[in-house]
């Protein structure tokens, strides 16, 4: 180069930066620090799961609330890391929302449960059969007296009475017991709720009015559903409501697999969670087991009973097993949740999306196919229509596509389907700045100017238009970024990068190529 020029320098930087960020896509085996700057594919292209969680901080003070969301994010991240998802993305959105993206995950239910699980672990003593009967009878008569508070039960009661009214035999028009006990029937050791009534029972258990019906000092809880048989009946336990031990007493939890030769039928050949208690927890556990020999101790997680083993002897050392009808992934999740501790504030999922891997890869294929075809046709057209100018534009176009991908990588953005669409559009629109300039150069040539002065005049005049046109679009992109959310934001970023890239390509890159390769000597004609 004859002399130093800012334009030349900027082009060199432009090419280097683009090459730096695109290299990881093309070359395998790059060093770690380089390869990690690889363009990420959005969930819609890769497949996976996205959950938007809303954190309920209403119960906390303002200062605590701010910390709670961050703390929750930390806990969720820990859980996901232990679950083993590659490249998860966990972001805070606005004041109290968390966006979790799990690319490549296919066990959606497990992932979702893992994230939102609160895992309030409690150990409670199970009521003796006679106590349990008394508690249930009490609930039954309380409910019968306050039937107007439980419309669903009142409806059932009405149906029962109609059925009974059809009976001919005397004395059967009054049902023997209340409507609540008709949902529960005595089983081998505990009570059972039929599959059809489980939903109603769950609603009751979640109802605060129902809790007033339960005698003080007691609570009733369902046992965990059998993962292998969803239509199975559910066991209902009556528990003493005193918390003997809680999750805070836990030191660590681990998923284990019982050996097939084990003599204990609860762990033989089955997954379970072994827990180890802190020193203080171990002491408490010892005391509880000593005081309740012969009774059963229920391990309750989020108000669901996981198992209720018999206490046969006083247990020291603070080791226990949570058995139950686990699948191995459930046991694994439970161990993770017990280890990572509880979420500070409750979360509820506000939206989820799941994209299968097949759809994603199909979308990439057809999206890039459309892009390549579009690009090829436009390039061919430019070449035919503007000859040398078109050739230069074609170079610039290819660089522009590269630049968009490179900048997306640099800003840690992800390539999504709307992003690919945005890029294809940018191809169409990127030629615009060049078209403006070339049309202007043609006009200037028509007025009889030399090639060099026509190019200069064309660029100078068209530059104003290019700036005006692109700044308005840039305003639109900026606003969309600021006020839009999620996918709209991604689109705005692609659009803005595309605009900046195409302006640079047209006004600096192509211009330089013109100056360097076309306008050599004092040529009069210009093939444009």
């Amino acid at each position, binding site marked *: 180069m004859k002399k130093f020029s800012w334009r030349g320098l900027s082009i060199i930087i432009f090419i280097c930066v683009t090459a730096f960020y695109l290299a990881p896509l093309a070359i395998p085996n790059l060093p770690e620090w380089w390869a990690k700057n690889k363009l990420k594919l959005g969930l819609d292209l890769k497949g996976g799961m996205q959950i938007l969680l809303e954190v309920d901080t209403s119960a906390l003070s303002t200062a605590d609330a701010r910390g709670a969301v961050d703390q929750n994010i930390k806990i969720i991240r820990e859980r996901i890391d232990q679950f083993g998802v590659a490249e998860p993305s966990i972001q805070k959105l606005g004041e109290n929302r968390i966006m979790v993206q799990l690319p490549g995950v*296919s066990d959606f*239910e497990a992932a979702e449960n893992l994230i939102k699980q609160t895992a309030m672990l409690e150990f409670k003593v199970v009521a003796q059969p006679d106590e349990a009967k008394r508690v249930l009878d009490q609930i039954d008569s309380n409910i019968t007296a306050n039937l107007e508070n439980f419309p669903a039960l009142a409806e059932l009661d009405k149906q029962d009475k109609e059925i009974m009214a059809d009976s001919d035999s005397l004395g059967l028009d009054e049902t023997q017991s209340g409507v609540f006990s008709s949902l529960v029937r005595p089983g081998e050791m505990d009570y059972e709720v039929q599959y059809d009534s489980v939903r109603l029972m769950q609603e009751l258990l979640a109802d605060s009015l129902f809790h007033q019906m339960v005698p003080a000092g007691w609570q009733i809880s369902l046992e965990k559903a059998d993962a292998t048989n969803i239509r199975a009946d559910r066991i209902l336990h009556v528990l003493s409501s005193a918390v003997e031990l809680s999750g805070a007493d836990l030191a660590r939890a681990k998923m284990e697999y019982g050996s097939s030769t084990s003599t204990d039928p609860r762990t033989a050949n089955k997954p379970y969670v072994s827990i180890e208690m802190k020193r203080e927890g171990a002491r408490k556990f010892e005391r509880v087991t000593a005081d309740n020999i012969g009774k059963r101790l229920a391990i309750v997680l989020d108000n669901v009973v996981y198992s209720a083993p018999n206490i046969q002897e006083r247990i020291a050392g603070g080791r226990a097993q949570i058995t139950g009808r686990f699948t191995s992934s459930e046991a694994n999740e439970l161990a993770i949740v017990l280890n990572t501790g509880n979420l500070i504030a409750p979360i*509820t999922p506000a*939206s989820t999306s799941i994209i299968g891997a097949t759809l994603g890869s199909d979308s990439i294929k057809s999206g890039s196919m459309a892009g390549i075809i579009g690009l090829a046709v436009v390039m061919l057209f430019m070449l035919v229509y503007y000859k040398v100018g078109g050739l230069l534009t074609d170079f610039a176009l290819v660089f522009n596509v590269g630049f968009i991908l490179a900048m997306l990588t640099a800003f840690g953005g992800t390539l999504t389907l709307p992003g690919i*669409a945005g890029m294809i559009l940018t191809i169409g629109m990127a030629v615009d700045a060049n078209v403006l300039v070339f049309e202007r150069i043609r006009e200037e040539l028509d007025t009889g100017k030399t090639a060099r002065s026509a190019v200069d005049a064309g660029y100078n005049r068209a530059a104003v238009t290019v700036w005006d046109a692109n700044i308005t679009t840039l305003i639109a992109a900026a606003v969309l970024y600021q006020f839009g959310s999620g996918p709209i934001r991604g689109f705005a970023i692609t659009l803005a990068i595309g605009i900046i890239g195409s302006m640079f390509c047209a006004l600096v890159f192509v211009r330089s190529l013109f100056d360097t390769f076309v306008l050599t000597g004092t040529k009069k004609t210009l093939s444009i």
Partner: protein
Amino acid sequence: MRLFKNTNIPFVGMRKITYTISIILILASLVGLVVRGLNWSIDFSSGVAAKVDLKAVDSAVEPVSIDELRNVLKVNGYPEAEIQHVGDVSAGTFMIKIKSRATEDAISNHTRIQIMQIISENFPQHVAGRDINRDVIEEIYEVGPKVGGELRTNSLLAVGIALVLMIIYIWFRFELIFGVMAIVALAHDVLIIIGVFALTGKEITIQIIAALLTIVGYSINDTIVIFDRVREDLKIRRKEPLEQVMNFSLNETLSRTVVTSGTTFITTLSLYLFGGQVLNDFAMAMCLGVIIGTYSSVFIASNLVVDVTKATHKEKQTAQHLNKRR
């Protein structure tokens, strides 16, 4: 090669005809919007949308018919489910949509899990041999009412603010009247495309909103290039009436307008033809948008500037009036 050289098409003279065409299109859109309304996707309302591939691995198994699927869902408690084929009937892929019945803000994965259960229980042969999570489900969206409503408000707010800021920029660079008319032309484009969606009953998804925004950007781009030329020509041709200057500028920029629209249209068309299922509606909106955006820049925005200026200022002063800033 040149397509247009020294053309003199009476764009301004044709404005009565093009106004009529635009008014008819806008009226049709409004009728569509009022009568049929917009079909907002699950993203903006709430509920569950699931795309499932029920093409059996074993080719001897009869393919699932849409009525069969509808019936199964109806029997299992989802009579309101909307079901459509995705792509070719032989692809065996269906879109199931269930608008939310819940009124609370949070979603529960209950509906989603139930649907998956119903499908795997009722179509065992079609699911057999494949992982239901990985291969049968192509995508599932589940959106709570709060998020859906917010998304709709935010998107509309973003578009509104973008339009206002663009008016201000154009006002600053040109004259207020140019800015206002550019935005009128934009509203015209967006209204017509939304009208097409209302009339055809196609869904307004997030992608369609993105398409509308691109059209806004594209159309304003087109309009500004023309206005820029008008601004320049007004300085050179001070003596001529505004109509003549405007027409001259439109002819001067015609070649650029056609080339740029052409290349953009080629890419959107290739997106429509080869971009696959997911991008189909998006590409359709874009194709329409390029055509309407170009049309409105040439025939509506500039002509409205002429007419409004003529109505508010005396003929003689018009050119100077629009020229005063630069």
